[in-house]
């Protein structure tokens, strides 16, 4: 059984159909890609899958449970974490504190934004371990706002990982990154694949083709193609494109 499934998801904004009959299936332990041109409906799709919008029709299932229409919070509590296309961090806080705040044990205890978070102890060790996973070892004390753009993207993924999710959604992680930073991010995500089930939305096909086990192509709010990178690469027009070149 798939870890996560969308069946016949349909969403309208006013007169505009933005998602039409979306069927998706993400397997446990895999990296699933969703790609499509700008304006294809990728982020709307993510927002429906993660509970920000309620679909007009269709069902969303996580580990067999129907989570259609649950709040983003209720969905997060079931073990789904997501990053955003636009970075959302606490810039005044250190990298370590950003992850600390997201640790479930810290959240349960409660914290306030005025007193400094404890920078030592078991929590800090766990947060530091998360930072190391996203390539930010040595940057623990740096203010999030002072990190380089690529590091901020990595930190955002770290914040999502802090909750030890069973499924991690990444929305356009390469957005705004240059070639080198994209290559570093790609390496980092490749490492995360060993321990997490991941879904990545991307318009950068090259990035997804190098990482994903399976890809769904979304355009006009619909899944227009799906397959493994090798299967999709067989297409004559894909071979003629930059993507087809080694």
């Amino acid at each position, binding site marked *: 059984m798939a870890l996560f499934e969308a069946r016949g998801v349909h969403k309208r904004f006013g*007169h*505009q*159909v933005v998602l*039409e*009959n979306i069927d998706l299936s993400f397997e446990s332990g895999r990296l699933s890609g969703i790609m*499509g*041109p700008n*304006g294809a409906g990728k982020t709307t799709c993510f927002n429906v899958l993660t509970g920000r919008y309620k679909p007009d029709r269709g069902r969303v299932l996580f580990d067999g449970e129907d989570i259609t229409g649950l709040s983003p919070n209720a969905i997060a509590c079931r073990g789904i974490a997501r990053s955003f296309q636009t970075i959302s961090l606490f810039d005044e806080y250190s990298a370590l504190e950003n992850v600390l705040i997201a640790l479930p044990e810290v959240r349960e205890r409660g914290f306030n934004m005025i007193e400094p978070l404890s920078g030592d102890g078991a929590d800090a060790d766990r947060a530091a371990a998360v930072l190391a996973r996203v390539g930010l070892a040595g940057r623990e004390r740096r203010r999030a706002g002072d990190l380089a753009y690529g590091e901020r993207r990595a930190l955002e993924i770290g914040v999502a990982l802090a909750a030890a999710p069973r499924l991690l959604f990444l929305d356009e992680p390469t957005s705004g990154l240059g070639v080198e930073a994209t290559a570093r991010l790609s390496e980092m995500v490749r490492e995360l694949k060993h321990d997490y089930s991941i879904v990545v939305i991307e318009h950068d*096909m090259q990035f997804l083709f190098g990482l994903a086990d399976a890809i769904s*192509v979304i*355009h*006009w709010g*619909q899944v*227009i*193609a799906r397959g493994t990178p090798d299967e*999709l690469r067989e*297409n*004559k*027009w*894909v071979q*003629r*494109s*930059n*993507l*087809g070149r080694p």
Partner: protein
Amino acid sequence: MAAPILDIRGLVKSYTQGLLHRRETFRLEADLSFPTSAIVGVMGPNGSGKTTLFELITGSNMPSAGTVRVLGRDIHNVKYTERDRLAIHYHQSYQVRRFRRTRPSFLMQPAGLDYPVVHLFDEPQFNTQDGYIGFMLDFFRRLRSEGRLVLVCLHPNEPYHVELMEEVCERFVFVLAGRVREYPDFRSLVEAADVRAYLGRLVPNGGAR
């Protein structure tokens, strides 16, 4: 016999200017019938009436005369919010879709379908760099194999635009200054003098036979 998927009869859209002396500024006329599933290429210069034709087919623009029937239903007599369950217009990204509502919906028919049977793609962004063309063409073929009618409109400005239309489309419609003409295949399309003049350097070698 089953009703055609799309049947356009005596369709006229006339735009006029002036209050006292009405002068026609644009006139579109079409008679077309697509009895079964197909992928149809619609070509013509900008401003020739391609998008207007699509709007008339999807019921977002009222015709001056004539009818558009999808599976036998007059689309202009289907509830506004359900018209895209019969025929859906995938707009160019910068276009804003606006329905002119002239009658209350309760007087009109339901669409009777969940997923549209006629799909109109208005100038899809085809570029050869990213490979999406291949997925789009396969999607058109999938819709066709499911018994649907696909209309793809394109104003070609690169040789591969003509190439992909030849590859995926089996019938063609050429729109020029509001006149709508149909061609049963690619060869007859590119043999027509005005189509050749329109395509210019883009006419493929095959058309020169």
